[in-house]
């Protein structure tokens, strides 16, 4: 599992959770129950189903200990878990600043700690995306309210024309979901830090 070229995973589970107050005043949002499991199990297993076993979990500084109590070093599930903190939330792509040393030139996969994926054939789709060695693979999902998300515009042949964050006039109903596969050059797109 220490192969230099195998893809690593990052789960972004920071954020203040104010939209769920008072539920999240004491407990991290990503530890809240989703029926019979803590929320974090869902994105974690999504990475595991892709075949990713070396994973960085980014949390707020004050909530990290709870994640460590629940998940430990991952060895109980045959994976390696590492921890990092996000001092304050400054965008989803901040995960690559925080995770730069962990990534260490490998391909990576970012998943948001509050996103849940389920469906037939999901495991195969994830494995396929993990095997893609160059470029980025993201997923578009038809939603009623695309203006809340990054929205992708396709041409009639299915090629991507544009990607726009929270557009007032969405060009399609396809939202980009919270699961992103990137190749080894991802950190090169960030400058001046």
């Amino acid at each position, binding site marked *: 599992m220490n192969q230099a070229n195998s893809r690593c995973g990052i789960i972004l589970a920071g954020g203040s959770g104010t939209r769920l107050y008072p539920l999240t005043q004491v407990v991290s949002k990503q530890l809240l*129950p989703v029926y*019979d499991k803590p929320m974090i199990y869902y994105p974690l297993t999504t990475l595991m189903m892709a075949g990713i076993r070396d994973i960085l979990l980014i949390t707020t500084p004050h909530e990290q200990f709870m994640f460590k109590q629940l998940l430990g070093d991952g060895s109980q599930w045959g994976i390696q878990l590492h921890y990092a903190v996000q001092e304050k939330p400054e965008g989803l792509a901040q995960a690559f600043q925080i995770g730069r040393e962990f990534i260490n030139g490998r391909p990576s996969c970012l998943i948001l700690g509050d996103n849940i994926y389920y469906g037939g054939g999901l495991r195969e789709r994830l494995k396929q995306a993990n095997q893609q060695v160059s470029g980025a693979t993201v997923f578009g999902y038809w939603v009623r309210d695309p203006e809340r998300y990054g929205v992708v515009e396709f041409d009639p042949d299915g090629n991507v024309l544009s990607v726009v964050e929270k557009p007032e006039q969405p060009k399609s109903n396809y939202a980009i979901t919270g699961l992103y596969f990137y190749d080894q050059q991802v950190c090169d797109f960030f400058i001046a830090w």
Partner: protein
Amino acid sequence: MTSRSVTSSSRGELEITDLNRCYLDIGQLAVERLGRGMAWLDTGTHESLQQAASFIETIETRQGLKIACPEEIAYTSGWIDTEHLIRLAEPLRKSGYGEYLLEVLTQDIPQ
């Protein structure tokens, strides 16, 4: 290497959409569509959190199979062995979760 890079946006954030645009600019962004049979749920509000829980409950109860069970996925991936799974199941038996892990061992559960 490329003309575009990710810098703080007008709302002071490093936007993932800007990163995706970097890849789009160099012709290396693949957007795969998840079809109608897929569920992508977010849990950002009280309503959507409750809906996600109900969705998971509905399918798990109907099938008797768990969604997002790390022990099961580790086992079916060959990352942990039978003895290890039994050890993990033991302290979880009172909630039924451990019983499920033992079913994973004894039944031919679809992946």
